[in-house]
């Protein structure tokens, strides 16, 4: 399948990329790993007249720890996250999420920034970013701005990224001592996209009481959401099996669950509850409770 013809641009830095974006406006699309955009172009669901490839812009990939957060360049591939020693030692749940995205070849090309900018309703990263409270750093003609994850996902494949902006970094706060995090997904058998995925990040105090809970759910609706009801039912409690079970019952509340080829609204709502429970249970175990 051949996509519609386009002109290709390979800027050497972010400024040049922003200049092209400003000049070409709606006719242009950013190309990152291409593993969402190129399939859409082959099906002619997307027909940009210009592609601005970030692949040759230095400095947009890599993972750094800056005290309180892991700072991940937008062009960092899923495999780079999966195999990063900084990730494994400081926030291993990110490696866990990366390792279940697609397949090894998809992980070698697909990027964290591309996934968060694309906001596929079945993408894995969104659930983890919500659970961990990440911030997106966008760069536009007027400089950089940060957008909190709760303001990021606006709807089906829609984000707070503005037309002339590029997502340059994702900042993921580190978890305090006494925390545990886990991601559990029900993968689509062919593509491995999340039919439903749930990520839980929990902090327990010395008495084993949950002091902070972040729970994100992806796959079931048009966008990933924070499971606020679940979080509220965890905070302030000792997380025994009955408490976890009761909290997880709220996992589909606030999700605009969509029936599709993968299942009915009822079935997918059920999966939200099951996978939230599994993620919370594992996060508690990892927190050492």
């Amino acid at each position, binding site marked *: 399948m051949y996509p*519609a013809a386009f002109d290709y641009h*390979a800027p050497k830095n972010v400024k040049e990329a922003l200049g092209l974006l400003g000049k070409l406006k709606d006719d242009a699309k950013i190309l990152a790993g*291409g*593993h969402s955009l190129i*399939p859409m172009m082959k099906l002619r669901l997307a027909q940009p007249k210009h592609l601005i490839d970030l692949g040759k812009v230095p400095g947009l990939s890599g993972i750094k720890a800056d005290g309180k957060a892991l700072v991940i360049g937008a062009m960092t591939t899923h495999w780079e996250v999966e195999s990063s020693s900084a990730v494994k030692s400081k926030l291993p749940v990110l490696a866990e999420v990366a390792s279940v995205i697609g397949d090894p070849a998809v992980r*070698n090309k697909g990027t964290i920034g591309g996934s968060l900018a694309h906001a596929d309703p079945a993408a894995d990263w969104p659930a983890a970013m919500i659970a961990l409270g990440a911030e997106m750093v966008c760069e536009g003609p007027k400089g950089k701005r940060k957008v909190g994850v709760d303001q990021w996902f606006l709807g089906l494949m829609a984000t707070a990224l503005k037309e002339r902006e590029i997502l340059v970094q994702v900042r993921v706060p580190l978890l305090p001592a006494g925390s545990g995090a886990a991601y559990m997904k029900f993968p689509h058998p062919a593509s491995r996209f999340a039919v439903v995925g749930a990520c839980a990040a929990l902090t327990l105090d010395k008495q084993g009481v949950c002091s902070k809970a972040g729970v994100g759910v992806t796959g079931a609706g048009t966008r990933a959401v924070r499971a606020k009801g679940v979080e509220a039912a965890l905070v302030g409690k000792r997380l025994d099996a009955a408490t976890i079970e009761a909290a997880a019952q709220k996992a589909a509340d606030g999700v605009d669950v969509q029936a599709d080829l993968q299942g009915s609204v009822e079935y997918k709502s059920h999966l939200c509850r099951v996978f939230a429970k599994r993620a919370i249970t594992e996060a508690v175990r990892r927190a050492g409770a």
Partner: protein
Amino acid sequence: MKLPVKMTINGQKVSHEVEPRLLLVHYIREVVGLTGTHVGCDTSQCGACTILLGGQAVKACTMFAVQADGATILTIEGLAKNGELHPIQQGFWEKHGLQCGFCTPGMIMTAYQMLERYPKPTEDQIRHQLEGNLCRCTGYHNIVKAIEWAAEHMAGKK
């Protein structure tokens, strides 16, 4: 608008002018003439088009040739040396890891990266790493055995 691209494929330098929308897999097969890399699904699912780009397994149907400008590529044709099969190829022979052979080039290139990352893979690791490669014939058992065979023989050589 055609753009110049240069790359090194199996040790040979190649350069051409291509349309930006030319997929890397079509460049390799139709422009360079290396037809060992296959096109199965053309929708990023089957892995028949897997090649190594800068040492990493990628699906060449989901990338434009212009993105690979300056890259070093290894395809199935680059594995055998002086008429001697690579141990992974030999493993597929010994363990009957193919039937029609359509998926085999992609399977072998994926296995190549796998054994670099995980020289002693468990069966579970092999199956997880093969998730992006579909085979309509073998049921995968013999492919797993072929990769296990290769892992043993490659370890022996080091």
